[in-house]
């Protein structure tokens, strides 16, 4: 699924050094499980996002292996430590080989 995929990420713009911040991510994706059948009884082939990663200045925060049991429009919430000013990079990997990316800057005051 290459159309209509839109990542949305919520990250605070500023943080104190070493502070833990909560990050919320959501990406619009139908996450077809491969279990459903269409009107004619044919199985609808699986099409999901199978991996999600979040990194800050090249250091990993979380790496999620995703199975078909994750809901439509996969949502993840987690906490990250921010040691210095930098940029979060979020990456989603689709079954069809597409890679979706989002970036957010965080300033440490």
């Amino acid at each position: 699924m290459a159309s209509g995929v839109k990542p949305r990420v919520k990250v605070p713009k500023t943080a104190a050094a070493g502070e833990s911040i909560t990050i919320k991510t959501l990406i619009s994706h139908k996450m077809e499980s491969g279990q459903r059948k269409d009107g004619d009884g044919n199985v609808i082939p699986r099409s999901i996002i199978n991996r999600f990663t979040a990194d800050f200045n090249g250091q990993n925060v979380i790496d999620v292996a995703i199975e078909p049991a994750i809901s439509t429009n996969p949502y993840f919430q987690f906490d990250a430590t921010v040691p210095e000013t930098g940029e979060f990079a979020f990456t989603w990997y689709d079954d069809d080989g597409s890679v979706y990316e989002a970036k957010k800057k965080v300033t440490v005051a």
Partner: protein
Amino acid sequence: MELTRRNVVVLGSSAALASAVGMPAFASLTDDAIAAFTGGAETGSGAITLTAPEIAENGNTVPVGVEAPGAVEITLLADGNPTPAVATFKFGPLSAVRGASTRIRLAGTQNVIAVAKMEDGSFQMAKAEVKVTIGGCGG
């Protein structure tokens, strides 16, 4: 068939066998998945918190959160789904709280299981039963 004592005994035992073999098909898949994750090691409980609703009206999006301080990896399983694996979280050096929340699909009323691999190599497991009104695996 004439209903002799022998026939009744045979019938009864085969019925018991069938129910014993038929029922826990999904549960054993889950046990396999847990064993594959832990390598057969014993799992403790306590240092892991699994947050899931008691009753979910819609099995398509069930909010689930898991947290285990000191975990390097947490895997989520649903023992009543066609495939029990849900997601595996690996935590990097900048992960503040070793936990995450997401939304999952549940085919019906079942147990959601979280297994965490801790920094010292031990394993922690938590289980929560979720009652599902409408299943979330199509059909």
